[in-house]
């Protein structure tokens, strides 16, 4: 089978799964009993990035962002929209630069290396997403909040509350998934 067709279809289907994990009620992970939940939505995007590499990761992120935008996104400024729905999600795919390292580590059974690279990859992806949402938040509040407000602080606090736990949870789950089921990132065909 042509690898490219398989890659396109896998990106499409796994990204749909990512979007649904974010959207279907009740599939999110509650951190505190009072509420505050983190979804596993970014996991499929990272899996695609580690399985097929950088370009596939970026594509998966882009589709995730566009799905999010199409099904009820909020755009109040072109730059905010671009950052919140395109840059933030495409940025997740940057994790794909470690794809070959992770696959090599798995074939050598070097679990420490695999874990380190997964943590590094998810961290970079999440950091880019964080920066994008942060800047979008600053633009948003700068436009719609009165002047002389610490808009950078609002944006920082708001985005940290779900992105930092999201990063930790995603990294842990991906490491466990990849080590127990290497076929998720190592292609057989």
């Amino acid at each position, binding site marked *: *089978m*042509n690898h*490219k*067709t*398989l890659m*396109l*279809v*896998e*990106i*499409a*289907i*796994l*990204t*749909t*799964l990512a*979007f*649904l*994990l974010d*959207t*279907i*009620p*009740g*599939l999110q*992970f*509650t951190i505190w009993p009072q509420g505050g939940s983190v979804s*596993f939505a970014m*996991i*499929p995007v990272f*899996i695609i990035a580690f399985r097929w590499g950088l370009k596939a990761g970026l*594509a998966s992120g*882009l*589709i995730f962002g*566009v*799905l999010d935008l*199409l*099904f*009820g996104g*909020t*755009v*109040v*400024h*072109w730059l905010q929209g671009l950052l919140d729905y395109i840059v933030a999600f495409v940025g997740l795919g940057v994790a794909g630069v470690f794809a070959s390292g992770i696959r090599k580590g798995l074939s050598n059974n070097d679990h420490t290396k695999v874990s380190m690279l997964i943590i590094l990859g998810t961290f970079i992806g999440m950091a880019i997403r964080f920066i994008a949402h942060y800047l979008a938040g600053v633009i948003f509040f700068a*436009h*719609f*909040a*009165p*002047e*002389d*407000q610490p808009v950078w602080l609002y944006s920082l606090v708001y985005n940290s509350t779900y992105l930092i736990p999201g990063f930790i949870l995603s990294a*842990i*789950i991906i490491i*466990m*998934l990849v080590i127990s*089921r290497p076929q*998720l990132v190592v292609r057989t*065909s």
Partner: protein
Amino acid sequence: MNQSFIIGQYVPKESPVHALDARTKLVIVFFYVLVTFSAETLSSYLILFLFAAFGAVMSRVHPLFIVKGLRPIWFIIILTFILHLFIQRQGEVLFSIFGYAIYDQAVIQAAIISSRLFLLILMTSLLTLTTTPISITDAVETLLKPLKSIKLPIHELALMMSISLRFIPTLIEETDKISKAQASRGIDFRTGKWRDRLKAIFALLIPLFISAFKRAEDLAMAMEARGYRGDYGRTKFRELKFTSLDLIVFLLFIIIVIGFFYFNG
């Protein structure tokens, strides 16, 4: 399982707005959003509002749907209004609440900023209320075609987008099935210790991933069996058509924009 939360906002109706080419709607919404940001005078806002309201009426979408589309943003609109009301300190004092003075400039500013927000959301939700996600994807693909010359894989991205949209209901069903099957085995990832919950998530994610990869392999095989070999020579099931209605709406929009800049000073 109730799928209504995901079908998106599209409301099927027979209306001139629904009948418009998705490209027309996309281009108009894009420029409408741009123009809204330069609006400064009351009359220019009025022109923008009239256009959006005209669109909303012509779409024959029940006003309740439109209000529902605006729901996530009501809070922000009201908050913005109140914040501006209390923090702006220019102009003359209009009246005071609990000893706190409200200035006339503050009222104007608050009204301007919140109506800008309102118009932006109204117009973008009008697009998603009257256009299916798949037509929006097709429209974006045609509009972005020129970017192919700088090696952006527009066709591939549009293809992935269409597959993704097509598979949303299928995967909802699948996810529902797997999470129910695992729940019947006593798995609960919402309560209990951290460790137990992580284990429970595993029992959900692994079958989901495995079945998603299986589905992808089947689909890729089916596509190749039917001769899929990329963009070249591919035909579409749905075709976008540009009609005289689109031309009329474009002309109307141009008149609106000219009127807008005339009254915007």
